[in-house]
């Protein structure tokens, strides 16, 4: 294995050096402001507009109480639904668990599962409710990261995904996101930018949502 690795790298090294003789070995120039779009005067409006353009449903709400009402409205449209609930600052602040249970809904807490018991509830869930790590206004994206209490499946396997976000999580531009990520702790094992519902156009370019990931993406953004 080592010898093939050495031979591989030696070959690449020689080829790079040989090709470099023809020129074209620029250094990594600083990007400056090139490509920076920003979010304009109203980042919240920009986020909502971009998410809607991508086929998602934004709900900009002034406070926690309205956020809870919005979630309850969404889930009560499907009273028989199996709900998978994550954890984290935004979700805990709303005490969603209590509200969902009091309404008599079937809720599975991610924190109550372990590796071997989680597969069935993950695949059976109809609605996944998660927090987000960031929002990007430029693209209308939510950013979710894998954590023990917010697994990858939570925002992926259920046909409906409801994400709760706070104003302070909103970043203007994609460049801001990667600057923030680069400055912080090591990257999580999995980080996804999600921009609207799952889409395919593989048959005659006809848009179909929900082919693999959630067909519905609801993002509740609490501005208080």
């Amino acid at each position: 294995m080592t010898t093939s690795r050495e031979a591989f790298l030696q070959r690449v090294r020689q080829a790079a050096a040989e090709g470099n003789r023809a020129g074209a070995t620029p250094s990594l120039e600083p990007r400056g402001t090139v490509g920076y779009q920003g979010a304009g005067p109203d980042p919240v409006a920009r986020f909502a507009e971009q998410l809607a353009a991508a086929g998602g449903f934004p709900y900009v709400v002034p406070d926690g109480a309205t956020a809870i009402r919005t979630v309850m409205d969404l889930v009560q449209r499907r009273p028989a639904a199996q709900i998978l609930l994550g954890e984290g600052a935004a979700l805990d602040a709303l005490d969603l668990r209590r509200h969902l249970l009091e309404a008599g809904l079937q809720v599975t807490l991610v924190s109550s599962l372990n590796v071997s018991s989680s597969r069935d509830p993950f695949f059976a869930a109809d609605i996944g409710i998660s927090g987000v790590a960031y929002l990007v206004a430029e693209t209308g994206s939510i950013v979710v990261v894998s954590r023990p209490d917010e697994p990858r499946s939570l925002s992926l396997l259920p046909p409906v995904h409801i994400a709760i976000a706070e104003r302070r999580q909103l970043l203007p531009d994609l460049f801001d996101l990667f600057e923030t990520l680069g400055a912080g702790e090591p990257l999580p094992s999995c980080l996804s930018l999600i921009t609207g519902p799952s889409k395919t156009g593989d048959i005659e370019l006809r848009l179909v949502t929900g082919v693999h990931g959630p067909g519905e993406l609801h993002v509740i953004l609490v501005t208080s």
Partner: protein
Amino acid sequence: MPANDYARHEHHAFLDASTQALSDAPLQAALTRLTGTLMAANRRGYAALGDSDQLRDHAKCIKEHTLAHLDHYLEQLEASVHKLGGHVHWASTAAEARQIVVDIARQANCTRAVKSKSMTTEEIHLNPALQAAGVEVTETDFGEFIIQVAGERPSHLVAPAVHHTRESVARVLSGYLGEPLPDDARSLALTGRRVLRAKFRAADLGISGANFAVAETGTVVLVTNEGNGRLTTTCPRVHVALVGIEKVIPRLADLPVFLKLLARAATGQTLSVYTTLITGPRRPGELDGPEEFHLVLLDNGRSRILATPFRESLQCIRCGACLNACPVYRRIGGHAYGGVYSGPIGSILTPLYDSVSENPHLPHASSLCGACQAACPVRINIPHMLIGLRELQHHDRPNRWEGLAYRLWAALLRRPWLYRSALRMAGLLLRPLTDNGWLRWLPGPGGGWTETRDFPAPAARPFRERWKRL
């Protein structure tokens, strides 16, 4: 060769395959719809960016820099992946890469693989090797799944099943499931979801490519619209990413430069639905994600290209924009090109990876109009490289008649009196063939031109004579 074989097998019969494609009415309709829509979206996408030209220059600069120091960044990538507890494998050839993936499957006792869309796995013909080793392989991109069931090859970088209609998809999937399916796109796609969910649930091996690999962090980046890339890296207990060495980028901060361009160039989207950054295997306490992460770095001819003036072709980020822009691809589709990669970039990659002498027509499958370069998010000078390949062909197999003709032409141009009389002679000789100012038929080698187009006849009064009186 039977009509469908070009869709199933790689080949070197460019002229026959493209002739056949031209008379395939459903294919022509599909190509017009796809390329027209995506090309307009590409222009809209760039326009919405404001300074897309500068951003594309910056992206190109990052690629040029990385390729110039590729050995360094590959070692850095390896070290980053090791630090995360992942494994790195070095595959010099397609055969080595196949063996590495088969060995990973064997050692981890994997028998059911799901794949997210990857042209690199197509390039090494991974599926037959896994199947021969007793591993069931399922393509999970919906378009790739359709063509896998149909036994065909992808015909477009980002829309692999573009050559199918909803009726033909219904036929293919009805046959696979043994039940008649309605032929509307929505119910077919949702049937696909149901079938593929079961595959994801049972799978123990997830195989992906990567759009980018970040050296600084050891991250592989997958961009999809359907979410199958996320499922492939969430459900199975082993993840193998097969990545061409040209996919490495230095820093995390370089990634958004390419993300801003990739989706805009491919489909006009601001961003694809899912951009997933995988950084090592599942961490302690996490409930899902793979326990093992393997990065297989593939050379397969890339280092050879790195040393040549064709290095620029390694900057390609596989968005498909040059296919949509190309007046040749738009007429003949992907299968006619014969190789894994099609369109303008395929006309460069297939001869370089495969063989220049066995793909004599591909460097000529272009009008050199430059639409490919204009659409390219990293501004690859495709026309320039096509001409370079033509030059290689000429050195490989010099054409004595062509050489003689050019020497004769040069001799004429050096002697104005001879040139004028030769032109006058040609005008006289061609007069019987002239029809309304055009030559509709020419004898000998000129027939190659007039077979598909007319040639303007020499003017009755040469410009030089008119000039004297102007």
